[in-house]
């Protein structure tokens, strides 16, 4: 791979590590959140739905800016963390994970919520009448029936995290091995006039995104033809 420099490969590895971490964490967080949103009758449902959807319309730089304010040494969270003896998050991999999770939240929660809503109440009622308690119903009925939605959520969350730039710029910076992800590297190459390398890396991103969406669509049609 003569075209990729060591720095490029490092950026690629970091990007995959970030996207995987964020996807796994977001699924763990998103499943209960989406479940709650799909079933609650609480008056908090609409405000929370709006907050979850916010990153869809907010410029990533705005999100990154507020995170920087909040997590920085003078921010509320930053000060609390310092008081607890924890290292500050901005310009670290962890900080990037936190920011990416917020940024990709709607891409994971919305498909999950749609899937849970599509499953509906009836299968859960049937299961309840067959002696299945709430947790049992979630794992043996709701989750398997919502599986296509879980796959969609994972693919979208992963692909979206791979492609982020504005948030990284604001809160991650461009530290090799820490926060210099693929999109930053492409930007660097373009700044330096290295269009060929920028092109190679961009192609990488394009192929990954295309493959993810294709795989998702193939999985769907296979399920459909079985049904």
């Amino acid at each position: 791979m003569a075209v990729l420099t060591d720095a490029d490969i490092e950026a690629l590895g970091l990007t995959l590590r970030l996207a995987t971490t964020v996807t796994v964490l977001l699924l763990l967080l998103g499943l209960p959140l989406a479940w709650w949103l799909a079933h609650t009758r609480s008056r908090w449902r609409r405000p929370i739905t709006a907050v979850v959807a916010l990153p869809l319309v907010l410029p990533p730089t705005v999100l990154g800016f507020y995170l920087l304010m909040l997590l920085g040494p003078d921010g509320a969270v930053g000060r609390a963390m310092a008081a607890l003896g924890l290292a500050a998050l901005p310009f670290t991999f962890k900080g990037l994970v936190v920011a990416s999770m917020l940024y990709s939240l709607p891409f994971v929660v919305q498909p999950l919520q749609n899937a849970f809503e599509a499953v509906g109440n009836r299968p859960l009622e049937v299961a309840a009448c067959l002696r299945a308690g709430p947790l049992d119903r979630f794992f043996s009925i709701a989750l398997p029936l919502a599986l296509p939605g879980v796959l969609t959520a994972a693919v979208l969350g992963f692909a979206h995290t791979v492609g982020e730039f504005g948030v990284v710029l604001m809160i991650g910076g461009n530290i090799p091995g820490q926060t210099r992800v693929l999109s930053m590297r492409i930007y660097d190459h373009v700044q330096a006039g290295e269009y060929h390398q920028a092109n190679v890396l961009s192609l990488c991103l394009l192929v990954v995104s295309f493959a993810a969406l294709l795989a998702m669509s193939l999985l769907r049609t296979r399920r459909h033809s079985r049904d």
Partner: protein
Amino acid sequence: MTDSPHGLEAKLAWRSGALAFDIDLSLPAQGITALFGPSGAGKTSCLRAIAGLEQHASGRVSFGSDVWQDSSHRVFLPPHRRRIGYVFQEPSLFTHRSVVGNLDFGYRRAGRPVHLDRDGLIDRFGLRPLLERRIDNLSGGERQRVSMVQALLSDPALLLFDEPLSALDGAARSDLMGCLESLHATLKVPMVYVSHNVDEVARLADHLVLMEAGHVVAQGNLQETLTRLDLPPALGEAVGTVIDGQVVDYDAHDQLIALEFVGGRLWLPYRHESVGQRLRCRIGARDVVLTKAPQEGTSALNQLPCRIVAVADADHPSQVLVQLDAGGSTLLARITRRSWHELALSPGSAVWAQVKAVALGL
């Protein structure tokens, strides 16, 4: 046979849309109770409230010595702890599991009780060839059979069936009816069976609860309740008699069977019954003609000597409902007011009830 002390007791009230429910039920600990009424009477909501699926219903529900709900003491057992077997109106199986995966869902959670004859139930409902099939490849009737066995295998103390036949027609319907009748004969737990079809009720139920607009308007033994004269007009079509008798003769040439019951003998069309078996037969009030004397030269095969017990206005001003005693069985006849006067009938009069065999369609 019906009034054992420890059945289901439910006193519940709740609102659903424009309908205010106020239910007071007391059901026997065995046999099938039909929850019967016109569409929109709230039968399904009532069944859901008993199951604990209507969380707005407040009041008290007990079964035997177990209290399932007591709102005044903040007791509410969720459905999965009520030991119920619920069959929904539209088949609702788990599409991500095979037929056998569906059947065993509740069975496994009930701890595979040894007193349940799993294989026997699978065979009786004809599910053996379907076990490995996917739910999407089943017909409506097959799905409903799976739902019933699924519910039976969860070792319920009470079965709740919500119009399980209403989405079916033709062969699937009569097929499933046969399954239910055979189930009735061997059932050890009580069942509440929601229906708006009086023929289903007549064939299956021992006990009847009549509902209208969210309220229970009458409840009691099936025969006694269906022959009451004071039922609301909305139930007008349902009134009639259910005869429970024994097949004593089969005329192979004319394809008729004779059914002997308390109060006489009826000829009715042969439908693969065998001599000696018990059979229920419904005589709708519309299908009874009254005459002062036994008739000759009539096509009606059945003539039963009766005495008039009582008379009441029917739902149409031109008609009356006449309650008859046929040697110990109560019959009901719906006749015109004009006939009532022209025949000079009155309570105590002796009359003959003519019943066309072809009207005994069950």
